């Protein structure tokens, strides 16, 4: 595995995505290497979520290729998923399960085991102390988001794909999440995020891609 070199690990090559009859973007290319953060900008409906879903491998692009260490992610599939953590608009937690159960199950599915005490620790860290044992459906919107975000702390995926991660979070949680992302990138990870909030967090390794400008 390449360490902190500038060899790009993620390459997006001439990507085009179409939803319905509408071309969202065409011939989009960029690369992302270790320790870099990509801030994806664009108006509502400019295709940010679509691009993130394509990056996660959930959505088949109209044309173009997404490569991870040189191979198409369509071919790598589970091999790529191992390095990926995707957090979409939906939190991906079960309302009938408690925060601890949710976190431990997603950890197991992600391929590592998370002990119960460790899960409690992580949830306390993300600001859910005292709510670890409640069915998640009784939590507030922001607290549910925190349960989902606790996966960022549990996981050691290199590549984070976060769609509007700051939605529904309070000021303290936004601060916390910014720190978590900054730490991840500093440790050689990669992240692609969309957000409408001003991200002050990000250091010199931030790149910006703006969707929906000149391609009409």
């Amino acid at each position, binding site marked *: 595995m390449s360490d902190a070199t500038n060899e790009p690990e993620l390459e997006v090559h001439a990507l085009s995505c179409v939803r319905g009859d509408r071309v969202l973007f065409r011939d989009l290319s960029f690369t992302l290497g270790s320790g870099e953060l990509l801030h994806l900008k664009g108006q509502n409906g400019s295709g940010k979520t679509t691009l993130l879903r394509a990056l996660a491998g*959930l959505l088949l692009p109209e044309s173009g290729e997404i490569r991870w260490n040189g191979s198409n992610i369509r071919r790598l599939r589970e091999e790529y998923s191992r390095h990926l953590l995707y957090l979409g608009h939906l939190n991906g937690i079960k309302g009938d399960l408690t925060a601890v159960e949710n976190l431990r199950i997603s950890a197991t*599915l992600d391929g590592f085991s998370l002990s119960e005490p460790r899960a409690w620790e992580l949830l306390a860290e993300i600001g859910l102390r005292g709510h670890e044992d409640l069915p998640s459906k009784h939590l507030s919107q922001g607290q549910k988001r925190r349960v989902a975000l606790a996966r960022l702390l549990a996981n050691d995926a290199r590549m984070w794909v976060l769609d509007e991660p700051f939605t529904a979070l309070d000021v303290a949680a936004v601060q916390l999440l910014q720190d978590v992302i900054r730490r991840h990138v500093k440790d050689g990870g990669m992240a692609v995020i969309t957000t409408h909030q001003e991200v002050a967090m990000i250091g010199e390794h931030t790149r910006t891609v703006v969707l929906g400008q000149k391609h009409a």
Partner: protein
Amino acid sequence: MLEPLFWIVRRDLTIAMRRRADVFTTLIFFAIVVSLFPLGIGPEPNTLRLIAPGIVWVGALLASMLALEQIFSADHRDGTLEQMLLTPQPVALLVAGKVMAHWLVSGVPLVLMAPLLGLQFDLSWEALQTLIVSLLLGTPTLSLIGAIGAALTLGLRSGGVLLALLVLPLYIPVLIFGAGAVEATVSGLGGQSHLSMLAAILVGSLVLTPLATAAALRVAED
């Protein structure tokens, strides 16, 4: 390798335990459908005995179909399904786990309930035994095949009706051999060969359907 499968089953069973009402609706539906026939046809024991295997089987089939929509729809709505597609685990394996949990929750109660309903039709003890075995072999197949339909109709507005149209024709072989096994026992021929066919269909579906369902889920999330 099998640990994720175990966790998925455990997860879905935990959730089912916390919302028990869903289980009972299927079961009550089964009881009502099967009980309607004696009421409509009249209390002639010979007629009832003759039609019993088919009716219990059709009832079980409809009840199991009714429960299908729940396999993936909740997971689709809360985003756990897309997360499942993004894990390093083979999706077919996770699908198998979900279907297994679904069968334990919706299929097994049907199997346990069936002999009780069979008594209404004055079925002999041997026929009841065959009924149980045939349902035990047949209902998992129904869940496995139904999962493909459930995945294909995921997120559609009138998904329920479409699901029935997709899945019911595929249920026909299971129905023929399932009801046939009981009929053969009633008429004294022995249901062995029918049961063997049911078992063969089950093994075949067990191998093939999770792959098809996984592919359908990928399309649904696209």
